[in-house]
């Protein structure tokens, strides 16, 4: 589904990704972990087309298409989704209107019927149950005055509305208490299908107890230092990141 080959990227001329290789197939859940400032969030931003980052080399294909030939909104309509770490607030734009426009853009791209406000209202009232969101949040301005946890619920609600092929979840657990984390983790699991995939970017292994990856990668210094199965997350929880960095440094010297 997603194939990343030797991807390099920089911001304001400073290299931040220094050769990433990653393959994600349908049905798979991957976790990217790493210390703060390692470049793991950067990878997500580059994939969805953040304009501050410049792709300086490598290739990325998504569902067989050259990802970087697509505008950010085209990537989204092709089925790429990102749950943002810090969702922005937009005063005056109702959450429901935003969700409906996003839904209809995707429906239009896929040749499905668009939903009018009444139809969408029925549709969205079902969806919010999945993330245990109160209905009043639909009528409020997009993310405006939402708590950290409410913003994250709204991100997963958007994921539920758009049903992306590949969802990148950037630090979903930040700002969430244990109960909310479990609710959202369960919601993400319910949205998972054999034809879909997940890329979970996280600093803490805690979220991986709910959303269980088959593959765990440690990213630091703009490179993937280590890839393994779910047991790696457990090991990182116990031992921290330093040993991976040391091991990689030693490997580099050999």
């Amino acid at each position, binding site marked *: 589904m997603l194939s990343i080959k030797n991807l390099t990227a920089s911001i304001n001329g400073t290299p931040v990704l220094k050769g990433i290789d990653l393959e994600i197939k349908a049905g798979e859940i991957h976790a990217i972990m790493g210390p703060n400032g390692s470049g793991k969030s950067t990878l997500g931003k580059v994939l969805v087309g953040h*304009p501050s980052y410049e792709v300086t080399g490598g290739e990325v294909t998504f569902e067989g298409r050259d990802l970087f030939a697509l505008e*950010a909104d085209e990537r989204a309509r092709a089925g790429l989704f*990102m749950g943002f770490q810090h969702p922005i607030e*937009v*005063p005056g*734009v109702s959450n429901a209107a935003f969700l409906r426009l*996003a839904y209809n853009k995707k429906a239009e791209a896929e040749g499905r019927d668009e939903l009018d406000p009444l139809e969408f209202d029925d549709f969205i009232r079902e969806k919010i149950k999945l993330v245990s969101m109160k209905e009043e949040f639909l009528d409020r*301005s997009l993310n405006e005055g939402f708590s950290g946890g409410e913003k994250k619920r709204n991100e997963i609600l958007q994921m539920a509305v758009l049903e992306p092929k590949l969802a990148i979840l950037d630090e979903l657990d930040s700002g969430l208490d244990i109960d909310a984390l479990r609710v959202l983790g369960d919601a993400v699991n319910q949205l998972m299908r054999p034809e879909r995939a997940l890329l979970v970017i996280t600093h803490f292994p805690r979220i991986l107890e709910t959303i269980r990856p088959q593959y765990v990668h440690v990213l630091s210094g703009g490179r993937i230092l280590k890839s393994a199965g779910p047991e790696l997350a457990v090991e990182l929880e116990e031992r921290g990141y330093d040993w991976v960095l040391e091991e990689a440094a030693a490997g580099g010297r050999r």
Partner: protein
Amino acid sequence: MNSTFNVVTSQEYKYGFVTDIEADSVAPGLSEEVIRFISAKKGEPDWLLDFRLKAYRHWLTMAEPDWAKVAYPKPDFQKIVYYSAPRAKAPKYASMDEVDPELRRTFEKLGVPIHEQAALAGVAVDVVFDSVSVTTTYKEKLKAVGIIFCSFSEAVKEHPDLVKKYLGSVVPYSDNFYAALNSAVFTDGSFVFIPKGVACPMDLSTYFRINNKESGQFERTLIVAEEGASVSYLEGCTAPQFDTNQLHAAVVELVALDHASIKYSTVQNWYAGDKDGVGGIFNFVTKRGLCKGRASHISWTQVETGSAITWKYPSCILLGDDSIGEFYSVALTNHKQQADTGTKMVHIGRNTKSTIVSKGISAGDSSNSYRGLVKVQPKAEGARNFSQCDSMLIGQTCSASTFPYIEVQNRSARVEHEATTSKIGEEQLLYFQQRGIPAEEAISMIINGFCKDVFRELPMEFAVEATKLLSLKLEGSVG
């Protein structure tokens, strides 16, 4: 990375065509002779000619103001044509069938309903083309309830006492440079009189069109609402696309007596000049409402999107006790446009209230300033004002400024001012795009959200138009 911001801003101005029509024009230049000519052309009474001449003589002693944050070549007042009228068989058309077909097509193209059976049913329209009013619809129907809605020239003939009583009573001819000029040379405009206790059954509207390349437009609008009367009035404007600047210097006066209410809405889309700042209208307008009676209410709503230069401060003089003044404004500037706009709320009566909501949007290389005065005079016991001034910037090369002036001379007054500046940033756009919404639709949605508090004050058809207009004006700014 900045490419995102350099592209979304510019749809061509679609009202930029010129109507090829025979016109009666006076030679360019301003003198007492020209003023006498205009007055004679309109068959005006002596008192009005006197008013004009006094204004002219006063104007000669005044200097063009330069305190606004706008820079432009000063107009050469001797090069402006002060009177230009489409040549007609009769001085005023008796019915639409007599209107020059070319002129009719012009207004059809502009989407202005000059036929009473036209699309925007339920809105009476006065149409002003260069210096004269072309037609006024629904006049008879309004007359039945005692409402006078006609061109200013006609009002001078048919209702001289009313005009004489109120003309210059809110904006005296000596008020400011452009008001003095207007008082000397104004050619036409609309007159509205709502008698005691009558709620106007439909929205009234005037559509202004500048066609002549050299002509200035100097219209005069006077709206009087007697005790307990109410009216909602809409104003729209466009002009052809010329590479020279045309001057528009209007004066609007509103008078509200006891318990009367006047709601005045404007969607201004004069030609703004091209993206390099060549051409466009210089819009220097004086608009003021007098809340003369107890518990009277005047509300200004404006959506300013056009003009090369905008210099405009619709104001309320809150004279009557318990009177209310409101100002809701969206001003959008793009490319090289410059706007210095805002309001004045002068609290004189007791328990007077005013609300100011101003939303400035700047894109391209434009400059957008809010300038507002809230003045509470010594006797304005219990006066209250709330001001909210928000600015939004699109891109890196535009500017927004806020100049609030607050003068309070009564201790019991409460004046609140809030201001914010935000930017449609890359992060905001990415968020929308990441949900599959293209950049241009994202901007339009963000802008409409930003302007919501103002748009909801507009009559419905106008709100829809305004929404579309803002999107059009910003097309190409980000992308």
